[in-house]
């Protein structure tokens, strides 16, 4: 069933009785060519691109809960390609291009809105690094504009330019960045994959990975054994546990990242704005809620909930940067479980088990990566060769020290990001 304004009109005039499920609810078959473990944004996108780009449709996505129930459903919806280092730079650039045609590709309105991402800086040193990053973005073919204080003031006059603790020196603006409706991304990919023949199987937890002679042969699940020639693990938040089923230890720690949304308000914030002196980023959703977040709680956690000190810290950043939102009220907070890698950058790679592929370590940047991650992971699984824009997301970079991607410069080891 194709979606369009006409379709809505027709259904509206006939009592909305013609709508059909956006995806089937199939029982798992006993065997697939390829099994993707994880029905989140990345897993669904992987399945979609396996079918669309590589013609692989004998594919099942196994989801232990409901589709899109992980981090794709609990984030701050920011999309951007404003990285500095080789590896991240080309990958996110590719991902952003996929975002730009996503709705038409999926026939599903994910409300991608390129309202621009503004990163503020508050010292000469921060400006120099912002410039370096902006130049990397342009080198990569993406867009960036360096604004001085007055330029920032013209764009976002509601910031506190005078009383805040850290003065605003300027900002790096990324016009093509923006936001998207997070759930819709998962649903759009799910519907697209389903329409191409992929089986999306919910309430199906993987309990074991079958390996014979160094080769993956299938998975054990709560809904029975499933044979597969190829298995992709893409389960942010449970990566270590699933990898352990294949005898692997990963360079991953699981951490909690909180986010917040306020009651609906008439438009006040048009861009995505980030604060350079504290982890704080904010945008306003189409429904009017201010959506914002901050840094990790910093302690390892599998509980999708945060604690007050970080929540308060985020609110404090809001109050020093843009006290005009002081009387907005926080309606809901939530937490996502982040796969934190040592250098803050992801992993898309083969494993030592033939036919077993790994996609993890997206830290707190996974949402914007969804299209690119799915595309590159599908390429790796289908062809056995890394997709060029993701070729640096190697698992062995920590052991060799080659190609570490520590964007923040806080250290290529755990708990420093």
């Amino acid at each position: 069933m194709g979606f369009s304004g006409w379709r809505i009109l027709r259904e509206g005039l006939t009592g909305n009785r013609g709508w059909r499920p956006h995806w089937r609810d199939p029982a798992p078959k006993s065997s697939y060519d390829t099994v993707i473990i994880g029905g989140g944004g990345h897993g669904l996108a992987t399945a979609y691109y396996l079918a669309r780009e590589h013609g692989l449709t004998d594919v099942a996505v196994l989801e232990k809960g409901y589709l899109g129930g992980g981090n794709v459903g609990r984030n701050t919806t920011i999309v951007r390609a404003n990285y500095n280092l080789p590896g991240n730079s080309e990958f996110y650039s590719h991902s952003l291009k996929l975002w730009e045609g996503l709705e038409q590709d999926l026939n599903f309105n994910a409300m991608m809105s390129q309202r621009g991402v503004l990163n503020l800086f508050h010292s000469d040193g921060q400006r120099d690094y912002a410039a370096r990053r902006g130049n990397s973005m342009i080198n990569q073919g993406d867009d960036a504009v360096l604004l001085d204080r007055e330029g920032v003031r013209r764009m976002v006059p509601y910031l506190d330019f005078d009383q805040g603790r850290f003065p605003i020196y300027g900002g790096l603006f990324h016009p093509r960045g923006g936001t998207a409706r997070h759930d819709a991304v998962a649903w759009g990919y799910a519907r697209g994959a389903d329409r191409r023949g992929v089986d999306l199987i919910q309430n199906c937890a993987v309990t074991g990975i079958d390996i014979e002679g160094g080769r993956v042969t299938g998975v054990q699940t709560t809904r029975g054994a499933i044979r597969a020639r190829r298995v992709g693990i893409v389960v942010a938040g449970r990566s270590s546990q699933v990898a352990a089923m294949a005898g692997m230890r990963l360079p991953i720690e699981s951490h909690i990242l909180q986010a917040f949304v306020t009651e609906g308000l008439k438009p006040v914030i048009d861009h995505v704005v980030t604060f350079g002196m504290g982890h704080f980023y904010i945008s306003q959703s189409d429904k009017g809620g201010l959506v914002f977040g901050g840094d990790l709680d910093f302690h390892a956690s599998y509980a999708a909930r945060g604690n007050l000190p970080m929540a308060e810290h985020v609110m404090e950043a809001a109050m020093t940067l843009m006290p005009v939102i002081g009387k907005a009220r926080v309606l809901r907070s939530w937490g996502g479980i982040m796969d934190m890698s040592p250098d803050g950058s992801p992993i898309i790679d083969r494993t030592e088990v033939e036919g077993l592929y790994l996609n993890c370590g997206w830290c707190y940047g996974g949402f914007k990566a969804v299209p690119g991650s799915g595309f590159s992971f599908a390429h790796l699984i289908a062809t056995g060769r890394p997709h060029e824009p993701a070729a640096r997301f190697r698992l062995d970079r920590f052991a060799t020290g080659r190609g570490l991607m520590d964007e923040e410069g806080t250290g290529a080891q755990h708990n420093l990001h």
Partner: protein
Amino acid sequence: MRIEGRGRVDRGTPLRFRFDGREMEGFGGDTLASALMGAGVGVVGRSFKYHRPRGVLTDGSAEPNALVTIGDEPNIRATMQPLFHGLQAVSQNRWPSLGFDLMAVNDLAAPFLGAGFYYKTFMWPQRFWERLYEPMIRRAAGLGALSGKPPEEHYETAFAFCDLLVIGAGPAGLMAALTAAQAGAEVILCDEDAAPGGRLLAEVEDVGGVAGHLWAAGMAERLRGLGVRVMPRTTVTGAYDQGTYGALEQVVPAGVHPGGAPRECFWRIAARRAVLCTGALERPIAFRDNDRPGVMLAGALRAYVNRWGVAPGRRVAVFGNNDDAHRTARDAAAAGLKVVALVDSRPDAVNLAGDVPFMPGWQVTQAIGRGGLRAIRLAGPGGRGRMLEVDGLGVSGGWNPSVHLTSHMGARPVWDPGLAAFVPSEAAVPGMSVAGSARGRMGTAACLRDGAERGVEAAGELGLRASMPDLPEAGDDLLRLRALWAVPGKGRAWVDFQNDVTVKDVRQAASEGYGTVEHMKRYTTQGMATDQGKSSNVVALALLAQATGRDIPGTGTTTFRPPFVPVSIAAMGAGGRGKRFAPERRTTTDALSRAMGAPMIEAGLWYRSAYFPREGETTWRQACDREVRMVRQTVGVCEVSTLGKIAVSGPEAGRFLDLVYTNTMSTLAEGRVRYGLMLREDGHVMDDGTVSRLSAHDFLLTTTTAAAGQVMRHLDFVQQAYAPRMALRLVSVTEHWAQFAVAGPLARGVVDGLLDAPMGDLPFMGCRAVTVGGVGARLFRISFSGELGFEIAVPARYGESLFRALLGRAEALGGGAYGLEALNVLRIEKGFLTHAEMHGRVTAFDLGMHRMIAPGKDCIGKALASRPGLVAEDREMLVGLWVAGDRAPLAGAHLFAEGASPVSENDQGYVTSACWSPTLEQWLALGFLKNGRARQGERLRMVDHLRRLDVACNVAEAVAFDPDGGRMRG
């Protein structure tokens, strides 16, 4: 409409207020909602999507409809807003007026705006989304508007501690608090209302022989006497780990200027135990147009009649599926209202309301009256139908225990089929128990008993001996009910009032495959409005269960996340207002430097002088160039107290330092200073600095300003974890010492003249204890400028005085003060490093310092610094860059081979620091270049797209000036 002789408002205190400009009158004790109802106002707001006119639905914080703007605060619940004289409230989400809202056209288009319609359209043509559709949607969406100004009032956060936190001051909460307090526990009792009593405030019911609300007020007094901290207007918003609770106190209502007091306070309460006594929230029944103004929850209608003496009209009906609805009919009739019908969907129900028309087995099928309820349509047994004229309808679909806080830590409530509601699971929040109707004990007597029992239990867990108190006599009505979620029939029936989610929307979501509760909620937006689904979640879940052919527990549960009620950013973030986000650190010469006209710039938490302008200088460059030349030619003085200073003392201090620095420190001679490099365990550079050996056992480390905190944490870790047996201890002495660099060819004279005894032949990289004016001081011969340099440290109280003395002497010799800008130029000329270069991703190898990793010993980071990727030839290495011509190089520019196009594949490196060198009369830069050490002399292209720079530069040694270091050694 006011009901004479009813309610507990203070009729002796009339209060004038305005709503949308119209002046009205209410009374002391009114809420804005009750005052509006008393003044005959039926329509108080508009719904989110269809802009349907709405009246008050509830009498509490779950209100989805009656949201107004008061002063500069949007989205104030009229049901929670105390009335005061002069209050001005304005309705929201309508244009041009509440009565005539153009956006109500959406309601006519409702067949096309069902669940998830926007996911299926607005995609063509592609560019129209951002240019047309989305801006349109954004303007239409949202509720109230922010004022565009920062809050004028003070907000605060605070901490409180107790043995037992009792959440809710209804019958259960009061008894729990009493029991525990009598046993000697320290108790905090919070309630969102200004008065204690909870549901008793809304009832006509005796407790212990007196009216319930009076009994509650008496209890609160008694509790205060027992030392209980009673916190009215304080809503517990979240349950967090280890007994931490968040709570929002409304100190003064919206619209009242609090003077010096805060408007709100966000409390963090640490409680050893807690009892949740939050009662229950009534839920509606869905039927056609059940959102008409005048249709409200039955318990709310009863509260308006009993507590505030108001009603939506004189002719009312009550529609319920349970016994409690009968009380509303009874009380309404007792108050003199005309009760047209008590409609009970249960055919076998028995009238408990007395002399009112009773219609068992009937259901209300439609509410009629767009701008205010005029009539209801009913369907009865055997297909009979009726229509009744009414101007108020109370609806009760049953009561949901307020389990919200029990799910904040991940636990899910469990389905109680008898109540047709969710009740808390056991031990949902460690240390918290639940009492009263919050766990499904619905009658007043049951609540009193349950509260007391939970109080005894909590006291026991606290190690106190409590005994059951005498329970006051009270009624104990059972809540008998038979579930009814939606009345069958045509038309739209509302589930989520604010977000305009109807029964059809829930069913459509199910038919489109969004059959899990999370999918349904996200697809329809049910439960996402400002009430967070307090009145709609269970109904929606039940409808979803029906639509998907499952039972309710098999369909899912409702979960809630903090906060229980919305919390203003100003309250929770009060600690960050203005400059409070981070402490300010001021050096000893801060005031003096400002007085000298020096602009101050942030360096971490510190403020440092950028430069010291002199007359005639109009740009920072002029001052900076002069200060650089001054240091190179005569002498300059600069405060460097912000660098971290750490004392390490003990017989094994040297051994310890060997572990944390790449180079060997244990061999350092007394009275000597050595440059040191510190790695992180991942083999990258953490920081650099100097190590001075003051005596056999005493070392003094310096760190960069930026990394001082990180290094201290790291050293504490290494000492406590890796060297707990070594005889040494360490402490930061940054704050004790004020330190000044004195640099330039004439530096010796400036310093020597101040010392009580001449320094003699203090060698380069030497240090010693000295006295200045009889004050113990430390003198180091080190240089970050490349000139003959000293740093002299005195106890901080003398810092400003010493600075003045140094300046006096320097100025006499043609020198003076210099700031951070000149300091930066001086060090770039010398190729010395700051965190512009040590940016976290560089190795000692990149800096050309790999030989500083001493081969004969272990150190932090050594093993992993040897990974092949960290010592590869193609790594970006530190180089100097000389730019010809008059274009300034820019830090942040990238490097390319000459003739190569400036794109990622050709990227060869980047610039980290750049300056005009007045010494060399040359633009200089430092940067990192692939295999840079092997590329000396190569000509490169330096490109900064952002600032349109594209210049040629030559690769050089990082040290541009005085490469042999003769000047600083001399």
